[in-house]
């Protein structure tokens, strides 16, 4: 929709220009794909700082893993080719399809935008926490810091970004990409907005990671040195959510149901990865 209060869109081409334009002022926001910004009224915004002219390579692969630029279109995630040993590769495509948004939106929406919108059902958030993803953040003073995504998304629509800070990239480490994964998604409708997203990952060294998104206002991530029995995983997840953010409630599902379907999914993914050669 038209953002009628916006008076200026400033395209930035380098970090210095970005720092000048995006100082953390209240009426300024960062624009990437624009699919969320332009989807609701933004009467408080006067200036949009357009990152798409930064010219960041959408994704790069190195020995350290996969780096996704903040401006990488979400749809491109599904097109990143598999590398030898990347057992977790199918999760990329799975998470893209978990988005409520249609392919016409996903081809414009970005990795950074999905993370910073910080919706509980944000599928890039799910992907990132499933694979120990961390973001590189650029501060307006020229500083750079790194933050695990489970610490970036702190609540429904809330992030740990400081004023003027911008997500530069999401790094998915090689170790995690080599893990076997299993995932479950539940929603009130087929292909609707996720009400519960559960991912599990078994690394080559046996370390086990379980992540819950959508059913909680922020990601809940549990780690074990080795795969836990399903019953223990269920108990631990239940406790972690209850002591943490609690079960999320909105029009996309009631909290008691979210709890039930999430714990069911937890048991399923643990059992799936427990089967020799099971899952991917």
């Amino acid at each position: 929709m038209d953002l009628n209060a916006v008076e200026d869109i400033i395209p930035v081409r380098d970090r210095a220009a970005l720092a000048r334009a995006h100082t953390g002022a209240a009426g300024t926001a960062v624009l990437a794909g624009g699919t969320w910004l332009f989807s609701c009224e933004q009467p408080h915004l006067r200036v949009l700082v357009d990152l798409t002219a930064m010219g960041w390579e959408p994704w790069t692969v190195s020995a350290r893993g996969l780096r996704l630029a903040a401006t990488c279109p979400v749809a491109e995630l599904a097109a990143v080719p598999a590398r030898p040993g990347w057992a977790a590769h199918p999760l990329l495509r799975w998470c893209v399809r978990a988005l409520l948004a249609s392919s016409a939106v996903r081809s414009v929406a970005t990795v950074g935008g999905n993370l910073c919108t910080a919706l509980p059902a944000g599928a890039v958030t799910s992907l990132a926490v499933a694979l120990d993803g961390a973001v590189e953040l650029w501060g307006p003073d020229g500083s750079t810091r790194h933050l695990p995504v489970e610490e970036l998304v702190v609540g429904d629509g809330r992030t740990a970004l400081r004023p003027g800070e911008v997500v530069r990239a999401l790094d998915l480490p090689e170790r995690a990409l080599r893990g076997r994964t299993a995932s479950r998604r539940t929603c009130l409708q087929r292909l609707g907005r996720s009400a519960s997203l559960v991912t599990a990952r078994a690394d080559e060294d046996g370390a086990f990671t379980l992540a819950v998104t959508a059913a909680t206002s922020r990601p809940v991530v549990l780690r074990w040195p080795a795969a836990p029995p399903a019953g223990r995983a269920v108990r631990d997840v239940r406790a972690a959510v209850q002591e943490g953010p609690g079960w999320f409630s909105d029009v996309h599902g009631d909290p008691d149901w979210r709890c039930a379907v999430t714990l069911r999914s937890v048991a399923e993914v643990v059992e799936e990865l427990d089967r020799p050669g099971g899952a991917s």
Partner: protein
Amino acid sequence: MKLTVDGTATEVEPRPGQCLRTLLREGSCTAVKKGCDSGDCGACTVLVDGAPVRSCLYPALRAADREVTTAAGLAPAGCLHPVQQRFVDAAGFQCGFCTPGMVVTAAALDERQRADLDEHLKGNLCRCTGYRSVREAVAGDRDPSTPPPARSGAVGEAVSAPAAHRVVTGTEPFTLDLADGDVPPGLLHVAVLRSPHAHARVRSIDVRAAAALEGVHLVLTHHDVPQVLFSTGRHQDRLDDPDDTLVLDPVLRHHGQRVAVAVAESVALAEEALRAVVVDYEVLPAVLDPHRAGEPGAPLLHADKDADASRIADPGANLVAQLHSEVGDVASAFAAAHTVVEGTWRTQRVAHLALETHGAVGWLDERGRLVVRSSTQVPFLVRDELARVLDLPRERVRVLAARVGGGFGGKQEMLVEDLVALAVLRTGRPVQYETTRREALTALPTRHPMSVRVRLGADADGTLTALAVDLLSDAGAYGNHSPGVMFHSVHESVATYRCANKRVDARAVYTNSVPSGAFRGYGLGQVVFALESALDDLARELGLDPFAVRRRNVVVPGDRFVATTDPAVTGEDDGLRFGSYGLDQCLDLVERELPRGGDPVPDGPGWRTGSGIALSMIATVPPRGHVAEVSAALLADGTWELNVGTAEFGNGTTTVHTQIAVQALGTTADRLRLRQADTDVTGHDTGAFGSAGSVVAGRALLTACERLAGQVRALAAERFGADPAEVVLHPDGVRCGNRTATLADLHAQAVRATGRGPRAEGRDDAALRSVAFNVQGFRVAVQPATGEVRVLRSVHAVDAGVVLNPVQLRGQVEGGVAQAIGSALFEEVHRHPDGSPATTSLREYHAPRAADLGETQVLFADTVDAVGPLGAKSMSEAPYNPVAPALANAVRDATGVRLRELPMRPDRVWRALREVAERA
């Protein structure tokens, strides 16, 4: 910046926060539609450098130096892209508002994507069709054994909509698709400030800063409007609805009620003006729960009104309307019954979600008349009420509708026209008001939420002996349609079953909620949900088959229609007749077909399966008057002109009217010019609601065309010295034996003789009405662990009399079933405990997508109606009504658990099953 649109390069200057859609539309590229404005419906889809994007989310500046392709540019002018041709052949649209975006999306799909339409159509919402025909068009897998619908044909043939080619190319204009010259220059725009409280009084309001802004022409508050109470709900008899509404009221009775209105050079300026309005609100206690609204001490919404003058049953008890009536002796019958079942069923707030939001544009014509072009189902009724509220003679107001982008009852209201008209009169300028999707979801009427208690008593053999309904309807803050919906809800529903003892208690109450209004089914669906569920329980109690218990009790020809009174006792005649009867056939058809075929049970553990049916009856025309006046004329060039008042919004009346004229005049569709939905073209038309468009105006049109054909035959007979009965009309002229004359010659002959060409009028007042029937059957699978309900098989049989157009009727039924599945399983307008909206965009309102719906097999009973035109009965809202109970009955069959509240969302189904399991 440079922008190329459909091959034409243009130089444009977008505003910084502008999206591509509004830039394109401002450039008269109206093939691009606004549906949701949040990227969720797909109506604005365009190709940017060949890739599909949502133009409402796409910053306009980003389109610099790019090529944009819309539905109008997919193929050279005058030609159709193969996908567009397939949409025509599959009849893949009804209102057609989603179609340009759908066509663009489909054109960009590759072979692999076309094989997975669940995923690749999930971002394209169609509210009318139910997607079967859309899938067929997109996938290109139409059954080649049935020919595509013809462009012209008589009654009974499969004929495509006359506007089909324009709809699929995006060139058919909807309400606000203005071409150069449609509206005088100098268009102003409206924005509305809406109440942030459920109940409040405006203590003071200061608009000085707003009015002083450059480009702002007018700011209206409650100080500036006519002090005339009216109702937004529109009926033939304006006294049907309570006069309880002002254009702007200092008392705000619901979240989202209008507070102030700005009229400015642009929407942006009007919004800016509203931000400068200073309002001091006195917040009042609110009542949101309809059960509390009638209790002593509850906040009163309309205590300031005179009950008689406003036609409110009791403003001192928040009571809009009530009905208490008994036939026979219900108490004794229950006491003596072998078996009694009872329960209370609840339905939620449902949005119509017409893809075209309410909107209107108004101006003063060269004669100084007020003209309003509106997205309305009822142009004549809006004209009459505008004249009344604004104190203008009716002749000084003209209301017209272009093609309307979906209605479903939501446009049987005057929701925008009053503001536009007032602004035009005050500024002298043309003024447009296009409501936002947010306004549509948070401030405009919804379906009535109801709580319906049903008790049934029966003999051991399942014969009903007592039937009692106790209903509470949540009117919301204003009474529009609430009396009508309440009375209708307990009429055909209760009258469906023969039973000597019936009692109805019904109340519609004010609450501080968004008003409820007319919605497909007009109250019947809510009561049918309760009644058909209760009947299913009764059959189970008695160990009877659900078909058998219905056959034993349904009305049959010869019975009286007894709902709340017995006509044999009162002597009243509301014109309702068994013009035909196909309910028996419908039951037989569903019983035969339901067990056949269907999807397999889904993979995974724990799925339980079951079947359920439900039926409903509906009067073919609303009671209390429905009038259509039409005329037909032969023009000098030998073509025909039809003047009909009915609006086209996907109901398909234009197609049916054309078929009637083709048959009666012996012509072809391309020789007909249908002028419609305009108070200037004919005397009166009550409007397209209550499924009346095809049958009432259709009968009037048939009369007019037959008279006109008679005149033309008489002219030819005179010319040839023959008997008029020997004259045959054909598309190019008349034939009498071996003599022929062109229609142009006959027109000239008439002008020479009488000074004018042949012209005839037809009128129908629906004094007699018939009944139509629907039976829905479902087989479902339910997964207790998640609460998911999956439809495996859906069969729907209709008794619509003679089928005027099989393709179109099938589409209406599929669409009605689809909308009802949405209401039954997903849809709900949510709000927070303080009454503020929680559903503000399409993302929080899940209307069915292609992935949510399988195919519904549609079956027709073979009947000929004695009342309707050419043996036909209306069939447009009715398919909606039996769907929810049929689904609930199937879920009950599968799980043993009776769900009494809609929607049957997975979380609710899961909880209900768990509670039963825990009790056991």
